[in-house]
């Protein structure tokens, strides 16, 4: 057995395996190629509307995040089967869980490239004057883009891992990804108005088109908009910077809860960490609702492309 004690950590070796497994997954490549092709087209200005790259990050969010849920869920099942085939092995479940979690570096890297492309596009092909509401910085948009794209590409696969740990049934990942999209649609600002609690959801907009009637917000997209309504671009209440930190804490919480599943883990310690992260997430969620951006800000110019 002494030959096994070669250089490097077990977690590192296992993480490399899981990263390779993620890279070999066809669904990942489907999402990655589409994301990057659309990024290149966006950079070239092809198919871009006046809002520039403002809403592009939904692409990596869906293609790397939602599909990533299915990918990492499958890889987790595969890892569990391999471990079960060996009975009991020296490497515990929690190390496998952490290695699987480390594999999110794959979709996250692609999403990061897409985000950089979106940021570059924002300056190379800037939005028209009817897009950005007064007082709203470019950083506001980039934070939103990072949350919707990069953090989704991290959080989606981690959700798949978490589901595989606690609901190891066939089809759960597919059902969860469909539910995730449905709930996301329902919790968009356009459908639930200006409710600030929307920032607690993991995938939401902060800048979007809004329909006004007599200067009052009525909704976004097609919801509630009639012929005598005016379309503008506007923000929804909520602080995207704090929301980003909130998403990071949620991802960390997901990993901790996934590790907690291992009956041989230090559950007392993990419970404390999880409770701390839950408290931090709640605090950050409340802060995202109450700090800095509590009101809707609307661009007074009529939106030309909405």
């Amino acid at each position, binding site marked *: *057995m002494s030959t096994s*004690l070669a250089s490097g950590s077990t977690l590192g070796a296992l993480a490399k395996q899981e990263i390779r497994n993620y890279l070999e997954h066809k669904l990942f490549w489907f999402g990655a190629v589409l994301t990057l092709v659309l990024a290149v087209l966006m950079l070239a200005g092809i198919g871009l509307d006046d809002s520039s790259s403002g809403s592009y990050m939904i692409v990596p969010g869906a293609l790397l995040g939602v599909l990533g849920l299915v990918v990492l869920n499958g890889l987790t099942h595969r890892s569990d089967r391999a471990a079960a085939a060996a009975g009991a092995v020296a490497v515990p479940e929690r190390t496998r869980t952490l290695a699987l979690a480390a594999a999110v570096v794959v979709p996250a890297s692609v999403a990061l490239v897409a985000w950089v492309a979106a940021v570059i596009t924002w300056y190379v092909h800037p939005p028209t004057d009817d897009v950005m509401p007064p007082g709203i910085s470019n950083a506001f948009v980039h934070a939103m883009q990072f949350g919707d794209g990069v953090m989704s590409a991290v959080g989606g696969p981690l959700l798949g891992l978490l589901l595989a740990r606690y609901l190891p049934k066939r089809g759960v990942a597919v059902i969860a990804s469909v539910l995730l999209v449905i709930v996301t649609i329902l919790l968009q600002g356009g459908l639930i108005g200006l409710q600030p609690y929307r920032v607690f959801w993991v995938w939401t907009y902060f800048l979007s088109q809004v329909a006004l009637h007599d200067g009052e917000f009525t909704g976004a997209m097609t919801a509630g908009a009639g012929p005598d309504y005016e379309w503008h671009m506007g923000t929804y209440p909520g602080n995207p910077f704090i929301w980003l930190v909130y998403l990071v804490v949620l991802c960390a919480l997901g990993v901790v809860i996934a590790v907690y599943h291992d009956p041989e883990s230090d559950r007392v310690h993990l419970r404390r960490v999880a409770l701390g992260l839950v408290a931090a997430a709640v605090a950050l969620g409340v802060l995202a609702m109450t700090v800095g951006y509590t009101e809707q800000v609307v661009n007074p110019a009529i939106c030309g492309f909405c």
Partner: protein
Amino acid sequence: MTPVASLTDVSKRYGATTALHPTSIDLQTGVIGLLGPNGAGKTTLLRLLSTALPPSTGRIEVSGQEVTGGHAERVEARRRIGYTPQEVVFPRGMTAFGFLDYIAVLKEWKGSGARHAEVRRVLALVDLGDRGSMKVARLSGGQRRRLAVAQALIGAPELLILDEPTTGLDPEQRASLRGLLSGAADTVLISTHQTEDVAALCDRVIVLDGGRVRFDGSVPELLATATGRVHIGPTASDGAVQTWKTGTGLVRSVGGQPAPDSSVVDPSVEDAYLLLRAEQRFTEGVTS
């Protein structure tokens, strides 16, 4: 001699059902066969010993590590154990090499060079050296079974635990596997329904029934329990445990009162096992 593994008053309960009554066994160097009917507690015993399952009571030690103690000792014991479960569900989409490579990482083979060499070694041991690049799903049943055994051989464990390793193998593959297992580890514990494997391979045999050890001794000792009790003749013995007509037209009877004109034949491990089981059923019938 210090045993490689020992169980002291180990029991396992699943709710109200006792799968294994308090049992004490020392496993020394050699190949040990574990016989018993379905539901006898064999798999439970193997899973306990492999640390895949915690016991309800008792103490288990493997290579001086008390696996029922702390986590660190349990992990240390796992480094010395190779285990092939009875039913292996292979991960989807993996090649034979990829599967073993993954298991090798789970067994703490961190450096890829040494790990790949070890994977190639165990693939060759189970005669799958030329099947490494094949998807597991495309391997035959017997090849998959050998692959399951190969993962247990990674790292040359001191204690090799195999739950029905020869199931699904053809006679040639079984013979080949016997040859491999006879020198695969210091101590090999094999659960099997194949009494020929026990006769051909094992230094010692343990018969488990109803969660209790019914026999523990050498193969000759097991055979001795049936000596003079197996007959062959024109008619079956009265009250025989099992009878069947052989290819010669004569009837072979295990146990019972021999019929006139019958003659005694050498018992097989299977004969001894059948008699042991029959006696056990009789004893249980009397006591109940």
